[in-house]
């Protein structure tokens, strides 16, 4: 709250000196954005220039959408989740651990090869206790299965959360790994196993 006086002063200043209206600022920002990635990969640029509806709404509401907007996002995202046709949701936790550690993929320096994308999970979550280098943007997932149970309902929940985090929490900071095609069905299953398999170090 220390900053409040500054903010107020700024608001006043902006009011007096003109400044841009919110809509003007948004439009200007979009133009500036397009002009500021002009030398990069055009395909990538086209993708980031055009936000999808969820990205645009979360941007507009700064990740705190009003209830009706949030409900709409959660509904549309829940409907987008594709569960494995086999009905099987648990993969191999060992592969899950590798995916959780791996940060490869989709950066402009990552060559377009057959190497699958990583999940970057440890960047934000504590997962297996042996890994001390973990982030804290998301909640700790240590002992997840031991605490939460490993039944089918939990499996479906975890699969869905990784597939599209915004199905259960609109404007969550967590990437929509399945919805955006970052991780494959099999990769998500391996991550479900990492969290839920009783043999996984996460639950030891």
């Amino acid at each position, binding site marked *: 709250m220390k*900053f409040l006086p500054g903010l107020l002063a700024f608001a006043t200043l902006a009011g007096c000196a003109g400044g841009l209206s919110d809509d003007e600022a948004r439009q200007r920002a979009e133009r*500036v954005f397009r*002009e500021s990635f*002009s030398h*990069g990969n055009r395909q990538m640029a086209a993708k980031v220039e055009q936000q999808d509806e969820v990205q645009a709404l979360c941007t507009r509401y700064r990740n705190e959408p009003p209830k009706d907007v949030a409900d709409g996002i959660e509904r549309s995202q829940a409907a987008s989740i594709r569960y494995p046709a086999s009905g099987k949701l648990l993969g191999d936790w060992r592969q899950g651990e590798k995916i959780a550690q791996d940060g490869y993929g989709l950066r402009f*320096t990552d060559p377009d090869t057959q190497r699958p994308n990583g999940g970057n999970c440890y960047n934000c979550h504590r997962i297996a206790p042996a890994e001390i280098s973990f*982030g804290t*943007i998301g909640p*700790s997932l240590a*002992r997840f299965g031991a605490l939460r149970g490993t039944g089918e309902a939990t499996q479906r929940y975890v699969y869905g959360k990784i597939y599209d985090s915004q199905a259960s929490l609109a404007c969550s900071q967590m990437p929509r790994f399945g919805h955006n095609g970052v991780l494959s069905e099999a990769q998500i299953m391996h991550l479900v196993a990492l969290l839920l398999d009783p043999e996984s170090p996460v639950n030891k």
Partner: protein
Amino acid sequence: MPFHRLLAGMLAAAVPCVCMAQQDTQKEVERYRQLLAEGNPADLFEARGEELWKAPRGPKQTSLEQCDLGLGPGVVKGAFAHLPRYFADTDRVQDLESRLVTCRVTLQGFKPEDAAKNPFSAPGRASDLEALASFVAGQSRGMKLDAPLRHPKEIEAFQIGEQLFYRRAGPHDFACVSCHGENGKRIRLQDLPKLTDPGDARKIFTSWPAYRVSQGTVRTMQHRLYDCYWQMRHPQMDYASEASIALEVFMAKYASGGEISAPGLKR
């Protein structure tokens, strides 16, 4: 109930041991940083930057000593403490690096594309702009950052920067705020400043450019932003682009009053 709240409750039992391990790790990482602090290789870059600043270069074989960094031609001391700012001669808001490019063009006669060439070093390939930025920033060390929004274009830049800070896009749905919107968070072991919190912003924004031990080189604020967008799965951000400067103006507003410690020393 949202997943993360549910989890927080469920995991309460496991928390004590988690915290203990986390505290030990944090303490050791802190010690690592302290042990490094007694000799910052950024010194080497500052020294090289000072030489470059004074050396006649470019088609006009002129030094940069008469460069106007905002406090008038030839004034380096304290100039970095008031950047980014509006410059009448270019009629735009400029940060340190964009201004260095301008001076290389106007004073030394470089073509704009040559003046902005090789902005980031790589192993075995030093960058003059990096060294120059280290030198100029070091000339404001210990001073307070004071970049008020006076000119209408500075106010507009702040507003544009603010919009960009929250703009989510790309395959990971990331925006700047994804990592820099809350206090006390980290990526892996790296602490993340909440850039709209003056407490964090004053400490962090003012420590760039900084020597990155993981990179073995100084990285500038432009490089920091370029790298953030790389991690965000965006394309290459143009050097000294309007978006980068708008974001700097946005951050500088919250960081104002912070003591400049640049060039800093980081992981």
